[in-house]
């Protein structure tokens, strides 16, 4: 890996040593089939369209964006749950893209996924014990029944549930408790990396806070690294060390947490931050809001040049016609343009919006 590449995707984390997970040029396109008898591919939804990421040991990397920006697909492609169209995912020096199920299995011990919906991700017909024990059995990690019992008990306790209740079924638990079961299952194989796909967005705030605290504690005590995928920027800000903002299949800005929130440089990040309502009446009412118009364009047919230009208030209101030409014709690369961290805007300039 070239140094230029490292700098390009690090967003100021170059001092963290070798990344544990390194993603380069990741693409995931879903074919659009035409009608008629013979299904021909007539186009592609470019859900993930060239994503570069580095996850360093012990770090939480937040991946944020609005619905349809490709953040969940990125997570799944990294885990090879949906094979990537192209690109490379290197986990601890080993290329994941192109591996088949059997070849993936030993790697799954080290990289696990926590799903968004705690209602759909647990088998309703299995008691909690079996759910948490399943990965241990599949990977043959325990010698005998008593060791398995002790391990499951410990896991369930680790996530703050009562081990007495492992003979119960998922339906008997609340949403927050189910999400804890999902986390216990993901931890069963003692992974090094957890990909968390919207782990708290289905939960009420008072319950959500408990799960966030649990995730923070687990990270510290077990030395985990998280790829934390979410749409809620306040949650992401709370838990992440670095944050990558996605828009229409691309990362458009990546920076250290405080840097991103105090000096966002990309107009989309600025709009995103300014759109979030603050639970503080005086500050909320005193804020100047950047309202962007319209909706996210179709990823099957992204705009030419900069993908954000169709909604960009800078493009619409600030730039001259000459300056706009660059936005229309040139696809901006993710690089540091003097803002102190990489972003993908020709006219990036840090602004404080909070």
């Amino acid at each position, binding site marked *: 890996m070239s140094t230029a590449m490292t700098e390009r995707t690090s967003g100021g984390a170059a001092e963290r040593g070798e990344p544990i997970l390194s993603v380069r040029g990741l693409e995931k396109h879903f074919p659009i089939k035409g009608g008629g008898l013979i299904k021909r591919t007539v186009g592609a939804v470019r859900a993930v369209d060239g994503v570069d990421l580095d996850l360093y040991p012990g770090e939480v990397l937040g991946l944020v964006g609005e619905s349809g920006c490709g953040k969940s697909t990125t997570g799944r492609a990294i885990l090879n749950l949906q094979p990537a169209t192209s690109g490379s995912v290197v986990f601890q020096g080993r290329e994941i893209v192109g591996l088949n199920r059997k070849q993936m299995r030993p790697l799954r011990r080290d990289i696990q996924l926590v799903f968004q919906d705690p209602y759909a991700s647990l088998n309703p017909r299995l008691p909690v014990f079996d759910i948490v024990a399943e990965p241990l059995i599949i990977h043959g990690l325990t010698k005998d029944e008593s060791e398995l019992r002790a391990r499951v008990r410990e896991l369930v306790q680790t996530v703050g549930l009562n081990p007495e209740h492992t003979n119960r079924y998922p339906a008997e638990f609340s949403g927050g408790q189910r999400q804890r079961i999902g986390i216990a299952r993901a931890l069963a194989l003692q992974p090094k990396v957890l990909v968390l796909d919207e782990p708290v967005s289905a939960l009420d705030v008072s319950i959500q806070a408990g799960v966030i605290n649990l995730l923070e504690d687990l990270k510290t005590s077990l030395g985990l690294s998280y790829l934390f995928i979410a749409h809620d920027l306040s949650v992401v800000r709370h838990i992440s060390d670095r944050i990558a903002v996605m828009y229409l299949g691309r990362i458009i800005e990546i920076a250290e947490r405080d840097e991103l929130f105090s000096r966002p440089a990309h107009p989309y990040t600025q709009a995103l931050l300014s759109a979030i309502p603050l639970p*503080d009446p005086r*500050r909320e009412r005193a804020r100047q809001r950047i309202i962007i118009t319209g909706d996210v364009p179709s990823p099957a047919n992204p705009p030419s040049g900069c993908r954000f230009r169709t909604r960009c208030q800078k493009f619409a209101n600030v730039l001259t016609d000459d300056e706009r030409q660059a936005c229309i014709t040139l696809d901006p690369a993710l690089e540091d343009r003097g803002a102190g961290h990489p972003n993908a805007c020709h006219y990036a300039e840090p602004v404080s919006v909070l």
Partner: protein
Amino acid sequence: MSTPGTSGTAASSSGATSTGTLSRGRTADEAGFDPSAPLLQVSDLNVRFPTEDGLVHAVRGVDYTLRSGEVLGIVGESGSGKSVTSLAVMGLLPGSARVTGSVRYRGQELLGQSDRSMSRVRGKGVSMIFQDPMTSLDPVYKVGAQIEETLRVHDKTLSSKAAEARAVELLELVGIPNAVERVDSYPHEFSGGMRQRVVIAIAMANQPEVIIADEPTTALDVTVQAQILEVLQTALSETGAAMVMITHDLGVVAGIADRVLVMYAGRPVEIGGVEDIYYEPRMPYTLGLLGSLPRLDAPTRERLTPILGSPPSLVNMPPGCPFAPRCPLHIAACDEQEPPLIQVGGGHAAACIRTEKVERAHGHAAEVFTETASDAVLAGEALPADLALGADAADATSADAPRADQTEPTAGGADTGSIISSHRGTQDGDRQ
């Protein structure tokens, strides 16, 4: 109404006489209507649903008064009864629901009215914006037709031409570009945010005096939410309506509401001006809710203070404060009877007998939640099960024991003691 000429003049001339862009003639002919009475007065509203497990008491005595021109925010977690309350006000609950109490719109009792007479109030006096713009529009009718239906149902004299002109005007008002062509689109041709704009256009079509918005931005992305909140403000200034804003998002309420009602387990547990609620909450639940929010604007990354346990089941509720099992300020007296809303300041009331303890925190959840964790222990509060289990586990896997301790959800931080985490574990156990 004969409206020759262009659509623009048609809209304004029809508005003056019937659709009400200028006039505010409305249900004045209804029985019991009193223009001087409070806009919307809900008193002792109770809703019960019969289920196989018994009677679910979803709303347990809701009282509020909506004054004209104000925005009342109703906040609470899922299952707190905030949506059922508004459906009861609109008379939209299924027939099996047992609704008691009183809902008065300008003095006119709405509960117990026939669907037919309610239809005269709905959309004209009180209108509603639903959460999901994907399902609240009819997929087989053009959006224009759906707006026109709302207009013509309340004004039989309105010509279809005038109604269409008004529909275009409304779509322009809610920020739909190229409205003249878009009236002929079907809902599926719109994005989520655009559909919600159409829903808002329908809600404001007849110049209602009250708009009830039930989680109007929950299904939307945050940049679209910001757009829709702007449109709602437009709708309010355009119609002069008062609004009940139901949401679980404390940020949205902070920006739009004048007064806030916090609901828990089917009851209002705190009501007050928006600044009182956010800066000087008196009910431990409100304090806990604010403490469990990750803050975008916090100077440092503070540890969150979750509320332990989960809300009670609304079937056969035990006596006493419903929040008591999760409350760090819980004392024996809390279990005796459910506290009524007690005045704690001008226009500010909380359903708690220990509000003076909450007052000391001045909105800092961590203070109350730690101080009282030790309180709870001194008072000999229940924490046996989990501690015992912790010891067990330490024996079984002694090597890993410290790790298990550390990873207790709320342990480790300087702001919360290990006591509260054991407390939490017990509560989880109780709830299962």
